[in-house]
Each structure stands twice: as C-alpha cells, then as structure tokens.
C-alpha cells in the first residue's frame, strides 16, 4: 500500500480537516461531512448542492465557492453520502430561493439524494434535482441503471452555478443544468486500476501494457480491454466515441481530465491529440480545460468530455468562479 494516510477509516475525515485548514473561505463540517461557502446562504440566490463518494477530488468539495456549488457532501470513498448530509447542507445554504441537487447517475447517489429531497421538502425547502449521465461508455436502456455521471458534472456545476450566481430562479437554474447535461458526453480510459484504502490493492487487474477503454471513475470496467495504444490512438477512440453520440453542430467546451495518476505533462500532450481529432472532425473548440478534476484516486488514465454550447452557456462558462479547484474572472 503506497498511501499517504493514517488508517483507512479516517481518510475522508482527515481530508476534510485538511481542507478546513487550507480554505478559510469555506465552512467545513468534518463531523457531518459538509463543505459549504462561508458566506452561504446568499440572500435571494438559488443554492447548488452536490455530493457523492469521496476519491474523485477535487470533485465536489473543490468546486464549492462563488459561481459554482453552495455546498458539497462527501461520502465514504466511492460510496454516495447519506441523505442526512444533503438535508443538512440544503438547510445550511438555502436562502429561501430553493436548492438544486446535482446528482451523478449511480444507484446509490440517486437513491440517497431522492430521500434527501423528500426530507428537505418536509422541512420546507424547495428542491429541484438534475441527474448527470454523460458517460457514453455505458449502453443506456430503460431496463438498466443508465449512463454514469462523470466529467459532465463539472460543466453542469459550473454553468448552473453561474446562472444561480446571476440570480436566476430555481426553475431556470434547473433547466440550464438539464440543458448542459443533455449536451455533455464523456469517455474514460484507464492505464492502471485505482487502489482504495479499505481494500489496499487495485480494484481490478490491469496488466501493464494494457488499457481499459470506457472505464468508470470507480474503476468500473468499460467497453473493452486492449493492448497499449498511443496517445494519438486513444484520442481518436475516445473523441470518436463522444462525438458519435453527441453529434455536435456547434462549438464545444473540452475537458481533458486526468484520473489522478497521470502526469500533467502527459495530459497536455493528450490534449494536443484531442484537439487534432476535433479539428479533423470539423468541430470548433470554444474553451479547453486540462487537469485532474474528476479523478479516481491514483488511477492512471484520462477522460474526454465535450459540452456543446450556445452563446448563453458559453457566457455562463466564462462567468467568474472562485473555488479551490476552478477559478477565473473577477
């Protein structure tokens, strides 16, 4: 076990203590598992609350701040949070204008957020929900759990967060969040499996020199396993998978995301290949973000997310944001 931890049991609480120390602009409730804007509730503003299993940092706690999330609820590693967290978080950040729950589409997250929504409404909080399900690696069907939520979450949280910051009412923020999700598609690739502290060994076997195409951010297996491919080949495969499904007719935002264990140097090199494919396909790129944003602990690998934008969404993307992991504008 090559881990910088005390014991597996305290990993999440330790991280929250460390976040609290590093970010005085956030309120971190270690006991209850809530990271919130210190200035929340912001009068008249719709609040955004997200959350999910830990191990995907900076998602979601690193996205809390002006222009993005009002609060985040981290669960145990790879385990969705419990409803109490979301209810408490909602109560803490609701100004009366209502709360949007941003939920990645995993059975656990969906069920816990659903329960939380019911409980929060019992407490008189107006709640709307958006489900993020952008992962094209998973075959979608009415009879399955549906597509997973991955990199698209960043776009939904940023853009809906900007709309909320600009004063949009709950229904409108919800509609924008849904629109963003409907225009986001992702595809992930693993070069190695991640190791959870509790298990202490890789969650799946991936021999060096092989890769898992279509991997999920909890190490869920993907479409197929192949022998090693070059950055160029991976970009072709991943972008094609995304584009075939999205079929964008306008410009896109591109997220070239690292899974946690791949050096930034390689991610930038991969971005060069992604941009090449997009140019070849005639798809204009409005903005590009390269880095580790939606990770899977120490997994080596990457994902590509494209989000088709119109003028309004692009303006909201460019709007100022001030969180630990995403910052721009004034």
């Amino acid at each position, binding site marked *: 076990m090559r881990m910088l931890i005390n014991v597996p049991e305290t990993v999440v609480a330790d991280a929250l203590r460390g976040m609290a120390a590093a970010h005085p602009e956030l309120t971190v409730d270690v006991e209850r598992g809530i990271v919130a804007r210190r200035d929340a509730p912001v009068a008249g503003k719709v609040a955004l609350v997200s959350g999910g299993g830990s191990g995907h940092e900076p998602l979601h706690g690193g996205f809390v701040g002006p222009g993005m999330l009002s609060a985040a609820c981290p*669960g145990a590693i790879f385990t969705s949070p419990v409803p109490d967290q979301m209810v408490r978080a909602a109560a803490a950040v609701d100004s009366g204008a209502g709360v949007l729950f941003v939920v990645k589409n995993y059975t656990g997250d969906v069920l816990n957020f659903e329960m939380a929504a019911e409980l929060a409404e019992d407490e008189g909080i107006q709640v709307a929900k958006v489900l993020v399900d952008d992962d094209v690696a998973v075959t979608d069907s009415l009879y399955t759990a549906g597509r997973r939520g991955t990199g698209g979450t960043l776009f939904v949280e940023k853009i809906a967060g900007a709309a909320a910051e600009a004063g949009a009412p709950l229904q409108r923020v919800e509609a924008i969040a849904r629109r963003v999700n409907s225009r986001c598609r992702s595809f992930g690739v693993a070069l190695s499996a991640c190791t959870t502290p509790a298990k202490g060994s890789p969650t799946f076997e991936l021999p060096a020199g092989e890769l898992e195409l279509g991997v999920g951010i909890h190490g869920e297996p993907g479409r197929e396993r192949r022998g090693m491919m070059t950055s160029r080949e991976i970009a072709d495969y991943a972008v094609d998978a995304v584009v075939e499904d999205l079929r964008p007719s306008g410009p896109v935002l591109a997220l070239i995301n690292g899974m946690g264990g791949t050096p930034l140097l390689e991610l930038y090199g991969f971005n060069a290949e992604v941009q090449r494919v997009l140019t070849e396909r005639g798809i204009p790129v409005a903005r590009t973000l390269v880095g580790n944003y939606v990770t899977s602990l120490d997994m080596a690998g990457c994902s590509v997310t494209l989000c088709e934008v119109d003028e309004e969404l692009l303006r909201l993307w460019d709007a100022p944001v001030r969180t630990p992991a995403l910052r721009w504008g004034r």
Partner: protein
Amino acid sequence: MGEAFDAGFFVRWLEAAALAVDREAGLLTELDSAIGDADHGANLQRGFAAVAELLAKEPPATPGAVLVAAGRQLISTVGGASGPLYGTLLRRTGKALGEDEHVGRERLAEAFAVGVAAVSQLGGAQVGDKTMLDALVPAVEALRVSFGAARTAAEEGALATVPLQARKGRASYLGERSIGHQDPGATSSALLFAELAGTARAEGPA
C-alpha cells in the same frame, strides 16, 4: 401458529447480523470488487455497527419500532445503493408491523413482503436482475413456511445470481461480463436471513 417474538428478539437478531456482517465483510467486499466497487463489506459493517450501537443505547419497545429505528440508522450511516435499500426494507417492514408488542412468524412474513415490495419499487429492480431481491423475494416467500426455509431460500437465491447478467446497480455496467459472479447484495441478504433463522432457533422452535 409458532410463538410470538418481542422487541428483544429483533434487537438480538440485528446484533447477530452486525457480528455476521463484520465476520463476512471481506467476502462481501471481494464479491463487490469483482462486479462493483469493492465497498459493500465496509458499507454494511459501518451501518450495522451503528444499528447495534443505537439499539444497545435506546432499545425501542416494539418489534416495529426496532425495525424502523434500525432502518433509519442504516439510511443515515451506510450511503451507497445498499443503505437506502436495506434501510427501506427494515423501515417499511417495521411500519407494517405497527404497534404490536409481539409478532408471530407469519405476521412477520407479511410485513417483510411489504418491505421487499418497497425495495423493489425504490430501486426499480425485479427478481432476475441480479440484486438483493433475488435473495429477499424467495426468502420472504419461504418465511411463511419456516425460518429455516427462509434461510435456505435466501441462500439458494443468492447462489442463483451467479449465472445472471446484472440489469440494475453498478454491476449492470459490466453487461455480459457480470455473468459468473455472485451478487454481493444477494449474499448479504442471505446472511441476514441466516442470522434471523439462527436467532429464532436459539430461542426455541418456530
């Protein structure tokens, strides 16, 4: 009619379940590692430990209240898919038991049927989807006959998930690759019914 069970019986069952889950956590995680995300053992450990602690501190007076409290505690401490599902199972079963201070096996089976239906409704899964329902549904059915029959039915139901392709939960992402593995949730359900039967047997024939 066999004899009737009081609140203490259900507390003892859930304490035994907590021990069993603790003992078998490695197996549950191993199974979840193959077709899920390797946390089912830790999830249930955390949840049932909290249930046992709660019941030891504030033991409710009726069987229904015990199950409702346990279900709530699972929902508040487990997270993941299994937290709301097992939490709902116990909570809705407990609610169905009402205020009764003693409940017999058949009444329990009826109440469990309500709880299992709620699980199916919540998660949208049916028998054959390779989930905990593959153990729960036959177990509850067999509970009408005896605790032992329920235990056996749950075990067989869990084993029967091996050749299935998952259609719900995280294992569904695997598609055909989910075939050949036993479902972790069905396995923990079998564990719960084994402990239920064990507790009933220790306290006299049902």
